[in-house]
């Protein structure tokens, strides 16, 4: 079989990493999950308007609320991290700077995502 790619093309890098479809797909999946969860979040913030910590504890102690808030926070931080990745890839040309900003963004998203998860768990139990 004749190889259609040039020798240079095969030598440079590994070609497509086949990861693009996964990124595209999980972005859509988390978007789909966030449609009902975002409405639930808006409803919750409305219900918790002016709430005290005791009322917040009572709200989160309901298993449904705990589960929905966890699902919300996980889908939200996963989704935003995917979106910010594309923004960084599009606008930062220099490779070193792009990698630095990307890692900082991932660390920040990871930190605040975990902070939200731990907080919801602590409020629920």
């Amino acid at each position, binding site marked *: 079989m004749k190889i259609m790619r040039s020798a240079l093309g095969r030598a440079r890098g590994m070609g497509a990493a086949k990861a693009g479809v996964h990124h595209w797909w999980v972005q859509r999946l988390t*978007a789909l999950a966030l449609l009902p969860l975002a409405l639930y979040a808006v409803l919750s913030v*409305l219900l918790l308007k002016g709430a005290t910590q005791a009322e917040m504890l009572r709200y989160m102690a309901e298993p449904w609320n705990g589960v929905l808030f966890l699902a919300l*926070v996980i889908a939200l931080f996963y989704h935003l991290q995917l979106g910010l990745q594309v923004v960084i890839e599009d606008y930062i040309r220099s490779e070193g700077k792009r990698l630095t900003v990307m890692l900082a963004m991932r660390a920040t998203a990871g930190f605040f995502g975990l902070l939200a998860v*731990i907080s919801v768990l602590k409020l629920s139990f």
Partner: protein
Amino acid sequence: MQDVREALMQGRNSAGGTVRRPLSPHLQVYRPQITSTLSILHRITGVALSAGAILLSLWLAAAATSSGAFSVAQAVVGSVLGMIVLFGFTLALFYHFCNGIRHLLWDAGFGFELPSVHRSGTAVMLAAAGLTVLVWLIGLVVL
């Protein structure tokens, strides 16, 4: 040679002579249209809502920390500045939400014809504004 980009655009043709490569126009050359404007708005609101997600996690963390910390957080949210910011986030959220549905429908293969792209764009703007007003009416008047 007045533009620095001109210097970068000097190339050589296959015969070895110098040629001036064509320049692509800057973004502001193009007339803003509903398609391009709503597209960049989706990105801008997405970035803004990421900052909002951090505020959401801080709000939850305050509640998990102490009743004092949470009452401070609630006072910040309920202040004039806090409400203005929250209103902005509500609008950004509903815009990103509605335009996200538009994107998901495109991904599923619906609504690609230009007239329907324009119609869905208008619908997204109206729906985002309507939902924001509705939620704030419920929040300020009903509750």
